[in-house]
């Protein structure tokens, strides 16, 4: 973890400055607001002023933990759903193979049954969790015998690993980020605490990690640490953390361009060659350390005569990727098993052979597929199309970030880039919406973050994001936690369907207010109607996926708006537009 920020007790001075500065408080333009503007502020209302954040923080963390654990009492992905079960079984299975098999077999073992397809840090994490779990009950991770195990005690252990991993990585990262970012934006401590609760109670991450089951927050936590290291000016740490994120889940690549653009920008304006070299070297060394156990383990296994693929009885298949590479390599050389291992890992982690999109996901391609059947086009063309579209969507934010490497732009740039990837890239999963949602939700900690406009848009993206995951959650009977956690968050932040308080803020252009309210309103209305129809009406027999398709189409449209909003805000905040232009378009973002 990055060290604590230099002076934890400064905020009170900043708070005063913020009062007369442009960045006004969340509680309206008047710093002496008499009433909370949404329920979450009410809950923290008694803590204004007198209560130190060190008293507040443990309480916040306890509440966030309680909701996570309570949500975890519900079922998980694949519960009693043979033959393959679900994500829960995948994670459990990885603990089983990593604790029972030699390291060189991890990426080769029975790939049909949830073969390991995440980068090595996930494997190491699984190994650690598996070792601890085996101490408690060895049967949980017994090789082969434990497949599809659903014992209640195991569930508690698995839930605990998610909570503990999150509290070790994501939660401290978010706490540090909120502190640094709010201070940079001139937001008072109390308001930052409100934002912290809002970020920690974000329904999508709780639903996917603690209910449906995965460890996304570990990867997201590394990314947040990386961003907050950038805020603190610790570029080398930021590179290390980002390698950690990539090493845990390849999905972190959604952010890679922004990390790259920012760090490069920081080395280019003004030119700072030593820093560039240092960042590059640290990145390379981090990757090397990340892969080291795998490499050393493989060499060690070879020395001990353990074959990575005992099922093939000594026969060596060609490399799954870079087939020509094999021609130039001596398959008998001592380093060949390492090459084979790494190529296999890359092959498992990046499944190039799969289609443009896997399931129904609310991105551009899947939505387009409703109108134009994409399967009739050659996959080569589709891949190139996806590559081009993704590129086109991520170049603008990253160019801005490169030329204006400012700390305050980071969450917006990360969010825009991740939205671009989510909407246009290849092989997107509906759970990937967590990636753009995370930096977008972090905006709540910034200046105006809890003001109406940002709150409305961040809330819109989150609620839409949860809604697009509803089909996924519904498949395993998780409607109740979905409803409770989403509505609770909407209620806390004063968002539709519980309140309209996030709209119609005085002092901004009437047209933009109405436009935002109208767009969001129609989406919220559509979501509500969709839920009614989905519950009450069976789709016609020739269109069994009708509800999912509508969900995907609407979701993609809404996410595209989120992309545009993030991009627009980024353009305005970066100040690259001439002043006259900016004031004209001010309405779409500032208030």
């Amino acid at each position, binding site marked *: 973890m990055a060290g604590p920020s230099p002076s934890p007790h400064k905020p009170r001075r900043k708070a005063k400055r913020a009062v007369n500065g442009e960045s006004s408080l969340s509680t309206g333009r008047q710093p002496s607001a008499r009433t*909370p503007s949404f*329920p979450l502020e009410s809950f923290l209302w008694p803590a204004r002023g007198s209560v130190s954040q060190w008293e507040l923080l443990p309480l916040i963390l306890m509440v966030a933990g*309680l*909701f996570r654990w*309570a949500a975890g009492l519900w079922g998980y992905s694949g519960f009693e759903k043979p033959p393959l079960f679900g994500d829960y079984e995948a994670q459990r299975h990885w603990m089983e193979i990593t604790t029972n098999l030699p390291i060189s077999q991890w990426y080769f073992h029975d790939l049909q049954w949830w073969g390991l397809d995440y980068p090595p840090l996930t494997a190491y994490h699984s190994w650690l969790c598996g070792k601890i779990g085996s101490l408690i009950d060895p049967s949980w991770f017994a090789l082969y015998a434990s497949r599809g195990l659903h014992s209640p005690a195991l569930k508690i252990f698995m839930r605990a690993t998610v909570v503990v991993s999150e509290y070790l990585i994501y939660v401290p990262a978010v706490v540090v980020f909120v502190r640094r970012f709010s201070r940079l934006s001139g937001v008072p401590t109390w308001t930052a605490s409100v934002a912290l609760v809002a970020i920690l109670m974000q329904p999508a991450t709780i639903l996917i990690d603690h209910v449906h089951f995965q460890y996304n927050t570990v990867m997201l936590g590394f990314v947040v640490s990386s961003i907050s290291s950038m805020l603190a000016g610790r570029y080398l740490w930021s590179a290390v953390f980002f390698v950690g994120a990539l090493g845990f889940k390849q999905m972190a690549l959604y952010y890679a361009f922004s990390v790259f653009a920012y760090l490069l920008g920081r080395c280019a304006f003004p030119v700072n060659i030593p820093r560039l070299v240092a960042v590059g070297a640290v990145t390379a060394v981090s990757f090397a350390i990340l892969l080291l156990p795998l490499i050393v383990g493989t060499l060690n296994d070879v020395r001990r005569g353990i074959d990575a693929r005992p099922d093939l009885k000594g026969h060596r298949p060609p490399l799954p990727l870079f087939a020509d590479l094999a021609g130039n390599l001596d398959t008998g050389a001592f380093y060949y098993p390492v090459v084979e291992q790494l190529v296999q890992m890359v092959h498992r982690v990046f499944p190039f052979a799969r289609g443009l999109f896997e399931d129904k996901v609310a991105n551009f391609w899947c939505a387009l597929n409703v109108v134009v059947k994409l399967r009739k086009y050659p996959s080569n063309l589709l891949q190139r199309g996806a590559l081009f579209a993704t590129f086109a969507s991520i170049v603008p934010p990253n160019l801005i970030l490169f030329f204006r490497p400012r700390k305050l732009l980071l969450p917006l740039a990360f969010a825009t880039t991740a939205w671009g990837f989510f909407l246009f890239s290849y092989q997107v999963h509906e759970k990937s919406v967590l990636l753009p949602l995370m930096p977008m939700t972090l905006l709540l900690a910034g200046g105006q973050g809890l003001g109406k406009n940002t709150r409305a848009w961040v809330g819109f993206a989150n609620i839409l994001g949860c809604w697009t995951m509803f089909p996924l959650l519904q498949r395993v009977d998780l409607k*109740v936690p979905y409803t*409770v956690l989403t*509505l609770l968050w909407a209620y806390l932040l004063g968002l539709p369907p519980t309140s309209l308080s996030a709209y119609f803020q005085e002092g901004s252009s009437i047209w933009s207010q109405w436009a935002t309210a109208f767009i969001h309103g129609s989406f919220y209305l559509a979501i509500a109607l969709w839920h009614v129809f989905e519950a009450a009406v069976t789709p016609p027999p020739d269109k069994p996926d009708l509800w999912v398709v509508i969900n995907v189409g609407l979701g993609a449209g809404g996410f595209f708006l989120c992309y545009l909003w993030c991009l627009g805000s980024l353009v305005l905040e970066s100040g690259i537009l001439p002043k006259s232009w900016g004031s004209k378009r001010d309405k779409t973002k500032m208030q």
Partner: protein
Amino acid sequence: MAETYPSLAQCAIVAAAFKILLFPAYKSTDFEVHRNWLAITHSLPLWDWYYEKSSEWTLDYPPFFAYFEWIMSQVAKLADPAMLRMYNLEYDSWQTVYFQRLSVIATELVLVYALQMFVDSSHGTSKRAAQAAAISILLSPGLLIIDHIHFQYNGCMYGILIASLVLARKRSTLLLSGLVFGALLCMKHIYLYLAPAYFVFLLRTYCLSPKSIFRIQFLNCLKLGGGIAAIFGTAFGPFALKGQIPQILSRLFPFSRGLCHAYWAPNVWAMYSFIDRVLIVLAPRIGLSVKAGALQSVTRGLVGDTAFAVLPDITPRLCFALTLLFQAIPLVRLFLVPTWDNFIGAVTLCGYASFLFSWHVHEKAILLVIIPFSLIALKDRRYLGAFRPLAVAGHVSLFPLLFTPAEFPIKTIYTVFWLVLFLMAFDQLAPASRRARFFLFDRFSTLYITVSIPLILYCSLVHGVVFGKSYEFLPLMFTSSYSAIGVVGSWLGFMVVSFTS
């Protein structure tokens, strides 16, 4: 005075969200008890309700609660008719769970309403304190553990109790207060423990003239007596007509049970048992005789007669006498100075006395003390000083109710959260007392609270690692003895505070 935030409604909404998430949590046999009562009241004619015994969980609450179950069964029909079938024992379909759990949350609205009444009845500077106390009751870990996980309907009934207590605050609603309390007695007879305080308070303030205790206000007596009679008539009348009263009474007051419940409620008898157990070890050295027959039952403590190996046995008569004695002391004071604060204090002390000295007390009865006490805990710092160990001991003593690992983080973290939040908030809100506080008492209470941390750690973790499944009674015994010290200590503290203020 500006509106205070957060409001009760806001807290109730967020708490409800949390409680809905707890639907799949552990549920005790009380869940089946209440399902069975739904089935009994729905399927059988009134006259058979108190005779039906095909399930071991026979109806043993007074008639108003049975009527309450009957009303709920009318709604339950829509959720899942199968839960209303007799002999469908241990039935817990998802619809049944949803319905029963939701019914607890819905009926708890009575509590929210009553607490709002309490806040509205306070004025001036104490309003913020009243709001904090109200929220602390609404979010009480006791209610969360007992009602929303273990399963019972205390939220609703304590709501009625609080409503009745608040109604007693104004002269104009004194009659109503008495009648509401009468109705509550017909729902759950555990509140009989508090009845002496009501009797004395209403006698003094409503039936006797405020100016002289020798002038009886006959009209008021008539109204109160007639009202109570009408309520009891509605409840028990139909059964009385059929001569079923003895049967009902035998269900309501099962005297065959032992002194201590399976798990010792943290009262005086828990300390007595603990001392007895220590003496078993010491007896041979100091020359006391050990009753051999008692040794077997002592290591268990199952429902049934608790036999003591060294100390003299306790009779129900002795329990009754002690309870009455310690209830009488605050009642004399209440009779002399019948203010509302004294009334609440007397209710609390009646709760204390019955919890500490009664026969076969259940640990859940601690709410009978904590909830009325919460209403006056913020009166000044001395009251708060007595409340603090009770808040810790009372809630820690409820932990053994939930023994499943999945609920362990919920009960501990929630309770710690509640204690940190409210003890901190109360500390800021309670005004200083005009009288000097007892220096040592506060120090002891701090020490006492600190001890709870290693205790919880030992009972939940260390014991399991060191001893495994053996000596299972040890953590329970430690918890109840620890809690008993806290409850008795806070009782003594509160007695002193209320008699010196």
